[in-house]
């Protein structure tokens, strides 16, 4: 029965109609205030300011403003503090047996891959990644590493050239340099989503295994809003691992990690050698040298070198050692100078000889033998700047000279 206009007691008669309106406004305000009280953080303004907005701005406008612009969508009431750092994560076990047996040949190869971004990009890149290796893709910022990996991953197109995979594309996983996820999901849900997309047959056990492998088991039920950058990178790796990929592409996996996080990530990558193929890009040469057995060096979109890390240093550096001996320095120096594999011997400081050899192998085998033959006491013998960085600089410097 509609209420008559001009009723003697209009307010009382209108109550059944007004109560739902008031209940809605009151409910929204209460909801927002409770949410605000429980939230550990809010956006755009301090909590007190939002309380004032909710209570003082005409209802329900204040509450709606808070819902859209103030509410922390990563889960009210959740503790946002990062989880305690885990001990070094365990080595990743192969998730299935027998599927990743190394075969002869390449797992990824590109031919004449070209993508021109107005003079930058990639030019005639022939990538060759042996199955089962850890392949480090090295280059300065803008060298074309991400473009190359994106084309291999299928998220960008090449202007010219081809990509050949020895595996199904679904057996390849990609972890970008900055993994991003919706902050209102938990770590377990994100990894489970990845599993459901690439390996629905694997079941929840694969999620557990992947989270444990990257040291995030204790944070499985936490929403991602409070995750640090390092935790997000490890979560990205867990997502990649949950499908038990044969080929794992990691774009700058250590770029934003602190030293401990870098060490953990590199330990994870190193542990995969032999069980799956890993291509990881980095401009941190020490990281590549530490875990990669194959290396490709990109400069200005062109592949300058591709092959074994050891061979790179062998071929592009004069291997050099600092030999510290306790006695008979002159006698040892003379004996070394007579060796056909010694390029140069000089006294770096009293009791210390700098020995340049023709190859690393000759130096590593020959120097201790000569010291022993002379009856001298060796204090130490350590490589002098025989690292990837020196090789990289030697290689790129040589090419600069050639270009000039």
């Amino acid at each position, binding site marked *: 029965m*509609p*209420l008559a*206009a001009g009723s003697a007691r209009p307010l009382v008669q*209108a109550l*059944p*109609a*007004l109560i*739902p*309106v008031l209940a*809605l*406004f009151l409910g*929204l305000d209460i*909801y927002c205030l409770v949410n605000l009280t429980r939230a550990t953080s809010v956006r755009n303004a301090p909590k007190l300011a939002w309380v004032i907005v909710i209570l003082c701005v005409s209802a*329900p406008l204040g509450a*709606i403003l808070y*819902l*859209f612009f103030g*509410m922390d*969508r990563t*889960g009210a009431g959740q503790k946002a503090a990062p989880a305690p750092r885990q001990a070094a994560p365990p080595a990743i076990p192969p998730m299935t047996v027998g599927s990743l047996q190394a075969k002869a040949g390449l797992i990824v190869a590109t031919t004449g891959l070209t993508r021109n971004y107005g003079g930058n990009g990639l030019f005639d890149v022939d990538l060759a990644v042996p199955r089962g290796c850890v392949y480090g893709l090295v280059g300065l910022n803008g060298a074309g590493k991400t473009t190359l990996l*994106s084309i291999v*991953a*299928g*998220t*960008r*197109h090449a202007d010219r050239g081809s990509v050949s995979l020895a595996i199904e594309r*679904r057996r*390849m*996983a*990609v972890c*970008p*340099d*900055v*993994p*991003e*996820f*919706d902050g*209102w*999901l*938990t770590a*377990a*849900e994100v990894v*489970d*989503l*990845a*599993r*459901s*997309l*690439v390996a629905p047959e694997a079941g*929840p056990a694969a*999620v*557990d295994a992947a*989270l*444990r492998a990257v040291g995030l*088991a*204790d944070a*499985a*039920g936490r929403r991602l809003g409070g995750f640090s950058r390092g935790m997000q990178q490890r979560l*990205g790796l867990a*997502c990649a691992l949950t499908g038990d990929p044969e080929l794992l592409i990691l774009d700058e996996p250590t770029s934003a990690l602190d030293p401990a996080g870098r060490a953990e990530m590199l330990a994870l990558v190193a542990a995969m050698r032999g069980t799956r193929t890993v291509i990881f890009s980095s401009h941190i040469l020490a990281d590549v040298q530490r875990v990669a057995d194959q290396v490709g060096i990109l400069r200005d979109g062109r592949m300058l070198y591709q092959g074994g890390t050891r061979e790179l240093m062998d071929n592009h550096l004069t291997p050099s050692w600092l030999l510290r001996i306790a006695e008979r320095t002159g006698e040892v120096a003379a004996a070394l100078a007579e060796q056909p594999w010694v390029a140069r011997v000089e006294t770096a400081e009293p009791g210390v000889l700098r020995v340049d050899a023709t190859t690393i192998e000759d130096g590593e085998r020959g120097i201790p033998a000569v010291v022993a033959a002379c009856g001298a006491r060796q204090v130490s013998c350590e490589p002098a700047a025989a690292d990837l960085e020196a090789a990289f600089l030697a290689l790129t410097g040589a090419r600069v000279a050639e270009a000039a």
Partner: protein
Amino acid sequence: MTTAVSARQMSLWRLEWLRLFRTPRALSLGAVYLAIGLIEPVATRYASTLLAHVGNGAEVRLPKPTPVQALSSYVSEATLIGLIVLVSVAASAYGFDARPGLAAFFRTRVRGMWRLVAPRFTAYAVGGAVAYLIGTLAAWYETRLLIGSLPVGGLLAGLLCGAVYLAFAVAVTAFAASLTRTTVASVGITLGILLALPLLADVHAISNWVPSALIGAPADLVASPPGHGLVHFVPALGVSAVAGALALAAAVLRLRRREI
């Protein structure tokens, strides 16, 4: 030791469900339509009183409000404010390419863009329809109490038209999201398209075929005699369905070609 993996397994459909209910999206949609549905009949009923207060006691005489007027007010506000909210929440869900890390997560795992678009379209088309239903029920309740009853048949037919129009709007949002990566731009393009459609309706020959003809359908249908009226909107319903499907197909094609 096992980790606390959610009891319910994840999928792209469950992701959208969680997106709706773990963020303010569902609450915003429902609250906005409910608020409009509750307020508009009250405002219609007490318009003269409210105007008198605003006018410092000046006597304002308005014609006696009718149930159709109350519903028209609801539809008018819901079409404007509700549609903006719906398009905004849908555009943010379609904007998975706005964040490169998130785009890489989906695009390297999902085979076929349709698998990404379909759950999002369904979630927001259904969400919009449910919110519209909630608002309409609230408007019906308030109108019945304050002004007079509305014919249920016409109301249901109007609901159908409104829901189809909202689904069309969500499909247009998907297309807009394939043209640009940012949510704000997607919302702008969508609203631009939706606001331009009524201009097309000015061309008399096609006025019944333009999807925007469905906007006023609920009020027209409750004013029509029982059993009549819906036929008048069949062309617009058909065009909305076809155009929505085409918008989704175009969105899928464009998203497939997009690089990250």
